[in-house]
């Protein structure tokens, strides 16, 4: 096991982007996690 193992990455997993997306719409906060902060979807 090493620091550069895929599980040790200091970033969101690729799959997390979908959850970050709906969280940014359903919650007031966004940012500082690599997710969407503005623009694009008008999902309600």
């Amino acid at each position: 096991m090493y620091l550069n193992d895929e599980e040790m990455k200091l970033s969101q997993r690729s799959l997390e982007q979908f959850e970050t997306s709906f969280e940014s719409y359903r919650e007031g906060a966004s940012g500082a996690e690599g997710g969407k902060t503005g623009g694009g979807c008008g999902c309600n």
Partner: protein
Amino acid sequence: MQLKIYLWVLLCFVTLNAISQSKIDKGKHKVGDVEIDILSSYYEQEGDHSAVEGGNGTQTLSDKVLSVTLSVPVDSVNIFDMSVSADTYSSASSDHIDGVGSYAVLSTPSSHDLRAYGNLAYSRINRKGKTLTIGAGFSSEFDVKSTSMLLGFAKESEDKNRELSVHVKGYYDKWKLIFPTEYRLNSSSFNLPDVRKTVSSDLSFAQVINKKLQALFSYEFTYQNGLLSTPFHRVYFNDGEDIYTRTGSIEKLPDYRSKHAFGVRISSFPFDWLIGRFYYRYYFDSFGIKAHTLNTEVPLKITRFFSVYPFYRFYSQTAADWFRPYGEHDLSQEFYTSDYDLSNFVSNKIGIGLRLSPPMGLIHLRSNSGNRSSSLKGLELRFAKYYRSDGLRSFIISSNLSFGF
């Protein structure tokens, strides 16, 4: 719209094939694999506080997403990253834009829409550990078209134990203003802009602390200007007893918003088979919202190439200054919203994922001549359940297939 999506996907594969050929022709220069990820997800939610009906109505919504990402290392210093995505969503609340209660103009199946979006970025890495990135993106759906630009810079230390990076991103959104039926004849009286501009900048610093622990600190600032309210979100005031006697209007918010987010990530492995990933964020903005996010993930390495990771996320926020529940706005207010996404609540998300990625891939293919190979490098599946204290609940299932060429 579907033709545009097919053309984008075709463009990506033509580009990929051309660059792959170029890589082969370079012969002895070894570069990384071309990587393609095919990601998909299905999301479904239920709730009773639809902003379309003033904070009191169904929030049933489902969303399906398909996304293809490509990472193409042209050589050891130049990399292209691109993605094309499409999601289709159906929303019961959107069906009620055209009338509420006895004002309903028509009754239709749940409204649905298609959104297509993509990004293209170019990165150049030099031998001194500096990386420069430029990129552009687009998004298109029925009522909003968006374009974006990205500029990024990163510097890694000589021993590769720390990295400093900064990114600036800008969005330009053009909206088609859609008003509830009852306000369409005099919609010009609301005097709403149809453009939103967003600029965000983030600064992050990553540091290896010891052989088993590393951390990342980040700060992101966002400024938005223009249309920040949603024209088809209704609000009702407290001057009557029911929908027929209360004064109604549409959501009204300031035309600017600034956001600040501070985050810290920690990754550690106390044992070779056990990893801990932690994330905390503090957020506040000019709307009066203050929020805390805490995310914990504990990957268990069943084998060196198969891991299972349960995760849990806690979130809490205070309400925006102008939020009131259904029918509680005062006519003296300058701004007003009954969008429960801007209310006071806590949420919990719990889930589990699994990841399989053997070094030779799950399926490995080599051409007859032996000079080209491809593989299904890995598979990842993820499931999450989300609960919000105002009653909104959802689940999401997502998958990722990774290929290498």
